[in-house]
């Protein structure tokens, strides 16, 4: 059967795998990238004119809450993956804090089936570290690995028992699985709702101190050092965490880290007015932390940008601030936020952005994605870099609309998302 072909012409082509950054074409045959650069003479079934556009690998988002099974009112695998394609994401890691939690072979199989039947793009499975994420007993790590999990995390919670976490790291290392750490010390964060500081004082809300994150991070780094496990730090939010990660990397600990777009776009001032769409965990921090996160992205201390897409219904968000659920959606705004806050102001180049959002996450997860080189899977996005758009609820394909960027304007729009050589989204 003849493979269908696509030729994307005249764009600025970015390949983070080879550091290719030049105007050129991309020729796709079937589900693979065939040629990059000068494609004169390539005859294609479909030609996409992409002058003044950016063509880069599709995003690999390694922190997404799809909410299925259990909270299909917030999001499903189907709606979440549709939203992903709209945002330029063709591969994502689904977090296991569902109901039931993905903590054994059976639940991993359940999710696998749902993905097979309804996912609009590729979904990778993350299993829980402990049974039902309760932090008491290790989950069936071998069973999870067998049924498709490529990483482990209790995200939403940290494992408080250090001895248990040590066992988990060892088991994960043995199984060859990445451990993604949500760093939070609940005895310090308690029932806080915002960053501890002048903003929490002004609003009369209980504050979450930064120590909650970086002290637990310190512990996880020590355990990583001791056990040699591959460890990835989720949603880094503050400068102290950045410093600890930088030090750990210097000591050659096998550690990687991610941050979410809200931590380089917004400070805790966004919470003034009691906007629950600025409530997430870890909370938005001070302006100096935002600068530290940006610098860390530039210096490679933070390896990845991941959305931490956390859909919630109005029932959980349109209520009193202290009772509102933590979390914001992000699949459909993460690229634009990164372009607006990091690329257009000149903090990152397109190549560096692509490394953070495609190449590095793929590498950390150990999957063959995030490249725009000949022979790589044809997971590609075409981006209008200067197109400004207003962030409004009606634009989201996600079932939930709790975005921290509502009412703002962002620059950078995905005009086409190609997955395995097939156009899955276009404007």
């Amino acid at each position, binding site marked *: 059967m003849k493979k269908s072909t696509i030729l994307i012409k005249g764009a600025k082509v970015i390949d983070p795998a080879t550091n290719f950054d030049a105007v050129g074409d991309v020729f796709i045959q079937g589900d693979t990238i065939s040629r990059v650069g000068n494609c004169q003479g390539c005859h294609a079934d479909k030609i996409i004119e992409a002058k003044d556009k950016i063509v880069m690998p599709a995003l690999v988002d390694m922190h997404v809450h799809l909410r299925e099974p259990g909270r299909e009112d917030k999001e499903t695998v189907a709606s979440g993956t549709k939203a992903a394609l709209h945002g330029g994401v063709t591969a994502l890691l689904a977090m296991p804090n569902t109901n039931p939690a993905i903590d054994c072979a059976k639940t991993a199989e359940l999710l696998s089936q749902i993905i097979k039947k309804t996912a609009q793009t590729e979904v990778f499975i993350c299993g829980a570290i402990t049974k039902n994420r309760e932090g008491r007993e290790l989950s069936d790590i071998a069973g999870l690995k067998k049924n498709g999990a490529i990483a482990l995390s209790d995200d939403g919670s940290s494992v408080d028992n250090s001895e248990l976490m040590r066992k988990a790291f060892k088991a994960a290392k043995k199984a060859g699985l990445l451990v993604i750490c949500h760093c939070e010390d609940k005895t310090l964060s308690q029932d806080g709702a915002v960053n*501890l*500081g*002048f903003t*929490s*004082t*002004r*609003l*009369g*809300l209980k*504050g979450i101190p930064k120590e909650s994150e970086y002290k637990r991070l310190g512990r996880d780094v020590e355990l990583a050092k001791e056990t040699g496990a591959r460890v990835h730090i989720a949603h880094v939010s503050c400068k102290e965490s950045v410093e600890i990660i930088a030090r750990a990397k210097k000591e050659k600990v096998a550690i990687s880290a991610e941050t979410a777009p809200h931590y380089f776009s917004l400070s805790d001032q966004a919470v003034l*007015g*009691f906007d629950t769409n600025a409530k997430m965990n870890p909370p938005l921090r001070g302006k100096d932390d935002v600068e530290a996160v940006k610098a860390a992205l530039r210096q490679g201390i933070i390896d990845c940008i991941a959305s931490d897409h956390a859909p919630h219904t109005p*029932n959980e968000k*349109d*209520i*009193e*601030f*202290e*009772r509102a659920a933590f979390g914001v959606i992000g699949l459909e705004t993460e690229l634009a936020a990164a372009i607006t806050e990091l690329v257009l102001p000149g903090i990152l180049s397109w190549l560096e952005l692509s490394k953070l959002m495609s190449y590095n996450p793929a590498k950390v997860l150990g999957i063959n994605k995030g490249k725009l080189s000949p022979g790589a899977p044809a997971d590609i996005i075409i981006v209008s870099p200067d197109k400004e758009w207003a962030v409004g609820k009606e634009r989201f394909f996600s079932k939930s609309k709790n975005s921290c960027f509502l009412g703002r304007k962002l620059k950078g729009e995905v005009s086409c998302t190609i997955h395995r050589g097939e156009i899955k989204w276009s404007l």
Partner: protein
Amino acid sequence: MRWKRKDLLDLESLSPEEIEYILTTAASFKEVTTRQIKKVPALRGKTVVNLFYEPSTRTRISFEVAAKRLSADVINISTEGSSVKKGETLIDTGKNIEALKADIIVVRHSASGAAAMLAQHLKANVINAGDGWHEHPTQALLDIFTLKEKRGKIQGLKVSIIGDIAHSRVARSNIWGMIKLGAKVTLCAPPMLIPPAIEQTGAKVTSDLDEALKDADAINVLRMQFERDGVEAFPKSSEYFKTYGITEERLQKAKKDIIVMHPGPINRGIEMSSEVADGANSAILEQVTNGIAVRMAVLFLVTQAKNEKKHNSH
């Protein structure tokens, strides 16, 4: 100036001119309360709903009296045995009340930001009668009114706020209001009851009561809560009284004509001694009287903001 706000949610966002305007209007209403017929028809036909999620007698009654003196109809909703206990959300409750054609909702709630949330979703006027630890604007306004009446102006006055600042909405509103009108504010509390970064408001911070009393023109003494969420918040109340209690002995080191205020109700023997509460320096009962005038002013002004048509008649 024109009063443009449909709601009164906090003092933090008010300009000094707006605060002065409320005080001036309150002075006119205070005159009304000295008449034989202590009533004006300004809010005749309007309905004021007191929506109190936290128990309160004095604030609720104060708002009720104020509304009635403006000839408004008053409905009191406390959440015992109401639909709220059946799980109705705050916004749903608010919308239901609005559907009954209530014009003004006075809300007290244990969650910071509750009043702001209601105001955003409702067309009715919303007045914050205390939301969590956040603000209690009418209390601070009546505190400021009382001080202004006695001292002529707020500018330059040294005012100390004493007590559990961290958990006090009265403190926050007073800090904003007093500083905006030019007072020099000192906060005095045990170290664990001082909220983070509070100096950024411009207030001075100390844990030494004598320092707070020295040269102060007025002190505002906050209520001390000894149980919070079932956990003891401060070592025994007798210890609090020893270190932070306002007694006549302590006031020896202060100005002779220092004004002593308290939002009430007073824990005699804990925040202050009975002698001070009933003594010559105490303005506590005047605060209560002024509270009516201030709340009349606030109720009156927010209804003005709803309408934009111009008119002229003699």
